[in-house]
């Protein structure tokens, strides 16, 4: 199916200091719909390195949110992970585990201490009837039974201080805080147990631009300090170009391009990425006509044979409509497009 060439020498399991934190292979998620299963995520594969910020960008229906819930195993019916593995390698060595098949009890041990999540709408992400500090205290004490309540509250106040929320707000209820404060609080919460990976699902979509910048700056600062990796999902490519080390572009449930953000901006290989990049204005460029991408995202229940982007692609040719392109490595980057196939390039 996919021909992934390992971009680094395959690190043996248990190799302390291994560069790769998360190894995702062939992850497929299906929704049990009334007329058959619909593939929201098909055959997603990538490596996530320690301390790296990986951006995942795509339109609605691209499968990026489904990817998040699959990675973190927070799915609800009718979503089911039907294939693939998500191999997590702990930072201090020890055996690698496949998150997909891990037992719920062991998974719970990993939650928050290794893998945490920041949701899109902080207003809904915090328990409305519990004090803010308490929501830190419960997770702190769940993962460290020896921690006293007083110590946990102290730590909660300290964490809130990291994101610029004063200690006396710890006793407030979520509805008493402003939207920006709530979002920052959820970020602080995500770091409570020093995770190795923080997954962020559109954390800035619901806030204004000014708050957006503050939040991003904070994330970068905290990442420098604590060294966690980030998977940042958004529909806004411009954000990722500044924030992410590498960017994965998703379309119709598949990754169509994966490269360093600078490469994505400078020389996108996939026509869809090109379209995305060209559809927002850079701040310093001369004023010119914006290009959108014609057409609409495909209905996942009725995917065309061949490349799902072909109907909208300005460079599509015959092979595109019959054969699905595989994600192929080109040095440090990968792309799923027949145009870039060495065979085609030569011909």
């Amino acid at each position, binding site marked *: 199916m996919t021909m992934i060439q390992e971009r680094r020498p395959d690190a043996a399991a248990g190799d302390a200091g291994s560069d790769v934190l998360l190894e995702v292979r062939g992850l*497929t998620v*299906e929704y*049990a*719909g*009334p007329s058959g*299963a619909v593939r929201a995520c098909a055959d997603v594969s990538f490596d996530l390195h320690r301390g790296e910020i990986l951006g995942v960008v795509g339109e609605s229906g691209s499968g990026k949110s489904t990817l998040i819930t699959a990675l973190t*195993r927070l799915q*609800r*019916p*009718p*979503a*089911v*992970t*039907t*294939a*693939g*593995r998500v191999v997590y390698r702990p930072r201090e060595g020890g055996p690698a585990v496949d998150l*997909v*098949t*891990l*037992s*719920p009890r062991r998974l719970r041990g990993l939650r928050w201490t290794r893998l945490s999540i920041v949701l899109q709408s902080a207003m809904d992400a915090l328990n409305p009837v519990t004090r803010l500090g308490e929501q830190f205290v419960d997770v702190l004490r769940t993962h460290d039974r020896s921690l006293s309540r007083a110590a946990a509250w102290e730590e909660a106040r300290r964490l809130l201080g990291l994101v610029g929320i004063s200690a006396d707000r710890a006793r407030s209820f979520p509805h008493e805080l402003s939207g920006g404060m709530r979002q920052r609080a959820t970020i602080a919460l995500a770091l409570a147990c020093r995770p190795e990976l923080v997954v962020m699902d559109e954390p800035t979509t619901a806030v204004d631009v000014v708050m957006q910048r503050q939040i991003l700056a904070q994330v970068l600062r905290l990442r420098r300090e604590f060294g966690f990796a980030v998977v940042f999902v958004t529909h806004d490519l411009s954000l990722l170009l500044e924030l992410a080390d590498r960017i994965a572009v998703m379309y119709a449930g598949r990754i169509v391009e994966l490269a360093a953000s600078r490469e994505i901006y400078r020389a996108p290989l996939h026509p869809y990425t090109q379209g995305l990049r060209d559809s927002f204005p850079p701040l310093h460029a001369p004023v010119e006509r914006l290009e959108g991408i014609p057409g609409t995202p495909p209905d996942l229940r009725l995917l065309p044979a061949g490349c799902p982007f072909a109907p909208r692609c300005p460079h599509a040719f015959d092979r595109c409509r019959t054969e699905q392109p595989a994600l192929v490595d080109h040095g440090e980057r990968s792309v799923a497009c027949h145009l870039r196939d060495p065979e085609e390039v030569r011909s």
Partner: protein
Amino acid sequence: MRASLLRNGKVLFGVVVLGFFVLLALFGPMVLSALGLDARANDISAIAAPPSPEHPLGTTQFGQDVLAQVIEGARGSMFVGFLGAAIGTAIAIVVGVPAGYFGGTTGNLLNFVTNIFLVMPVLPLIFVVAGYLQGTGLVMIAIIIGVFGWAGGARTLRAQAMSVRNRDFVQAMRMLGEPHRRLIFVEVLPHLYGWIASMFLGGLIGAVMAEAGLAFLGVSDSSAISWGTMIQAAQQQSAVLRGLWWWFVPPGLCIALVGTAAALINFGVDELANPKLRAASRRVAKRTESVRREAAVAERA
């Protein structure tokens, strides 16, 4: 949507059962004469007799055939049920929609009246009123039930009307100068049909039960036969102490079935209308299970 409505097991069951009783109510007398039964005829030879081939559901203390009474009673109970629900729903609409739409002083006043009726324990009040009204027909009973039971529905409609009124399209039309009456009937009300239907069904259950309750307490048309009057008569004649279970079990069962049918319809419709409830339905759970079983990966749930 309609197709999936009927595919939902709960709704289907509810519609079938409710439909059956509606038909029974409508065609009851014809069924009775076809079967040669008379609800009021006294069979002296079989006083308080248990079920037998001549009297499939036994007879009452007065030798009246219970099955015949149940069929005849369907008409009485369903009549009061539908009329009471209709009156209650109508009042709820008239009070609740303007309360939500207009807001301000009118709205507050209407809301206040609604709350009073909500909070007041209605039964003692009905007693007092009914006590003064000597002798009441079924229509009067239905009116009493409707007049005392509209408050819950009005409250719901007020909340819903408020939210529709605050939607952008209504605001826009107001600014264009659309008159209130047109807005209410043409724009706001259609959004509330679902709620009104659900309220009517809920009211139906309530009214049938209320009729039975009132009849049980002696507030009823003494010449009419309904499921409620049957249970009341049974109680009067100490049916329990004499073990005449066939007298009061069938009518109560019918009330319960009607109530269950309407409730299930509401439940099923709720499920379809609310995506969160739908995602939690049995059908979705089963579908998810089958996808999970065929998956290449065993995700331990």
